[in-house]
């Protein structure tokens, strides 16, 4: 068995489980893992990650929806904003210093983590 095959399988399995468990895409695990273990550059890793997300998120969504835990109207509205934001970000991503974005993101995540724990 080729080693990239095994590595892809292990990364896909771990990220898939996280996706179902936490309602996320799993890119947070896949992107750095693809870079580190499969020697992809960041763009290729992000692109490959997002394509695998379609399958695992689609599967998890079926179970969540079956239990009535999806607010489709809200999801649709957020999606409109997200699609616009992604387009905007892709066009202007070099205008904002990345360390400022990452720093702000870190602070917001830390506050959210504390709130969710208590």
């Amino acid at each position: 068995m080729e080693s990239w095959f095994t590595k892809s399988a292990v990364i896909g399995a771990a990220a898939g489980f996280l996706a179902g468990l936490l309602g996320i895409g799993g890119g947070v695990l896949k992107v750095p893992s693809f870079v580190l273990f499969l020697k992809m550059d960041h763009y290729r890793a992000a692109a490959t990650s997002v394509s695998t997300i379609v399958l695992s998120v689609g599967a998890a969504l079926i179970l969540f929806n079956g239990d009535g835990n999806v607010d489709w109207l809200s999801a649709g509205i957020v999606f409109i904003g997200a699609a616009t934001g992604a387009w905007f970000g892709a066009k202007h991503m070099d205008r904002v210093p990345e360390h400022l974005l990452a720093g702000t993101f870190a602070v917001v995540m830390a506050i959210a983590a504390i709130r969710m724990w208590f």
Partner: protein
Amino acid sequence: MDISMIVGLILLGLIAGTLASTLGVGGGIIFVPMLVAFFGFSQIEAQGTSLAIILPTALLSTVVHARAKRIHWGVATVAGIIGVPLALLGAKVALSLDQETLSKVFSVLLTVVAVRMGYRAWTLRPAASSPSIDRSGDSAGS
């Protein structure tokens, strides 16, 4: 649904979409805590709704990346297919856990992301602002 909620949800999407496309992180990791904190969702509803936002977003991105030939299809196929049964298992576990435990598990994930992003912000900070000796060589792999 009132107008302030609609505006709030669009704003949430805008922020998450911008961050996701610039930092490569930040769909579900932003949607879930924000839906709980500001829009009155339960943890499990927030996770389900987050998945429903991610699916069409990921689909669109996949089309764009595929056209640009950036996807490694071998890895994507293996990781994607293996991910399906594990995602189903993860969802089963999430739906069976009590909400408080699930929030704590999510909180651990957020902490990991906060530390990683903080580290990234630190390593990317403008070097000129620091008068210390250049140690970029020996700190690179640590």
